[in-house]
């Protein structure tokens, strides 16, 4: 990491086991504030597990995770989760109407604020009264992202946000992540999509079988062409 870049998360010798399977093996790394960090690697490498540690949806069996130098168990977990929002790979909608869905993220949200969030996620602001049942996969995923933003988080954890989306939806999510970091927010992104990673991530962490194998700046898109 560039010296002088503030560290947001630091993981120290983090190990996670589930049912005898080693998911993360003594991972030590840092995630900078105000930038997009991508976690890459093959399926089953421990990417999602690492992401879930950052908002305490999972707990390490050994080692510790710190936010701004403080161990996560020392922080109020509910405040932590409002500060560090996680959007899962498969969109999960909780209510029957778009406006209610956004208010699940922030109950005091006004209709104007809700419309603003939809626009931010690349959705038409006039769909507040629409039912959630008829939304496409891409619309649902963008609505989940808008719902996460409703609580005004400082960190966005995105788990494969574009894996099942059409190009337009993927582009909207990519733009949202870029504008979020431009406004000073931090994005941690799990993705198989190397092109997306190169476009929006400033830094990558590569996991293989639970071990951190590569850490450093993300390659430029042009570098990909040189790869075999």
């Amino acid at each position, binding site marked *: 990491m560039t010296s002088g870049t503030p560290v947001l998360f630091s993981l120290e010798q983090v190990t996670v086991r589930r049912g005898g399977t080693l998911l993360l093996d003594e991972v030590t790394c840092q995630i900078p504030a105000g930038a997009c960090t991508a976690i890459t690697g093959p399926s089953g490498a421990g990417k999602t597990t690492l992401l879930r540690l950052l908002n305490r949806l*999972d*707990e390490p069996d050994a080692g510790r995770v710190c936010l701004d130098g403080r161990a996560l168990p020392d922080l109020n*977990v*509910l405040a932590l989760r409002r500060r560090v929002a996680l*959007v*899962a790979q498969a969109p999960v909608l*909780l209510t029957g109407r778009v406006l209610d869905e956004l208010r*699940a993220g922030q109950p005091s949200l006004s209709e104007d604020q809700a419309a603003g969030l939809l626009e931010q996620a690349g959705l038409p602001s006039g769909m507040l009264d629409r039912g959630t049942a008829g939304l496409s996969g891409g619309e649902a995923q963008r609505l989940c992202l808008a*719902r996460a933003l409703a*609580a005004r988080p400082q960190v966005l954890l995105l788990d494969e946000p574009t894996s099942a989306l059409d190009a337009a939806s993927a582009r909207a999510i990519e733009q949202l992540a870029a504008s979020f970091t431009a406004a000073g927010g931090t994005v941690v992104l799990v993705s198989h999509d190397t092109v997306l990673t190169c476009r929006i991530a400033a830094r990558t962490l590569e996991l293989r079988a639970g071990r951190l194998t590569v850490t450093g700046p993300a390659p430029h898109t042009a570098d990909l062409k040189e790869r075999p």
Partner: protein
Amino acid sequence: MNPAVPTWAGVAASLALVAAAIAIAWRQRLHLAREITIAAARAGIQLAAVGAILLLVFRHGGLAGAAGWLTLMVIIAGQVAARRARGLPRALPVATAAVAAATVATMGTLLALGVISTQARVVIPVGGMVVSGAMAAAAVTLTRLREEAAAARPAIETRLCLGQPATDAFAPHLHAALRTALIPSIDSTKTVGLISLPGAMTGLILAGVSPLTAIRYQIVVMYMLVAAAALAALTAARLAARALFDDAHRLRPLPAPTAKDHR
């Protein structure tokens, strides 16, 4: 002797019905003849033993003996209800506490208000009905809660990720489980007397009591069963919901339900 009650010779004669069931099973090659024989023998031996013990408790135990008997029933009922909710964290203490709370509150109210007598011969059968109703409600509640928690994990974790506390994140699923647990009890209260004559009333009528007297007992029984089911379901749901989450508002891992759990 009450002519409505069969003699021991009559009990022996009713074995002819068991023999008929065994004969049908044997002729149809159901491989159930041995099972039926064992079930019939067990029923006879268990009921004879229970009858003998009850006779002792009625004669010498008094209210303390009845309380001891009910405690034993609560422990057994807790184990039965917990078995239905295999895989749920702390299922045994949760189920036992739910049945115990419902039994103590319901029986305590009936005794305190003088609705039923404090005689062991009254407390034990009435308490048995309460324990049984509480056990059924606790078992359904815990089974449904475990299924809801496993199936709705993505929705629950989504709510947790939005900063909701575990109680709020699980509330819709808790309400669904409670409704499922209480509907049978409410339905049987609604239709009592229309679809079937309930057990307590049937027993009193067989014993020669006037139907108009028997219904008084049955009304009390129905009311107490609704209360017992509601209390057991609510206690089970609250305690189980707490056991499903840890201090960091995380849903604990749950084993996938097996075919055995649905038996």
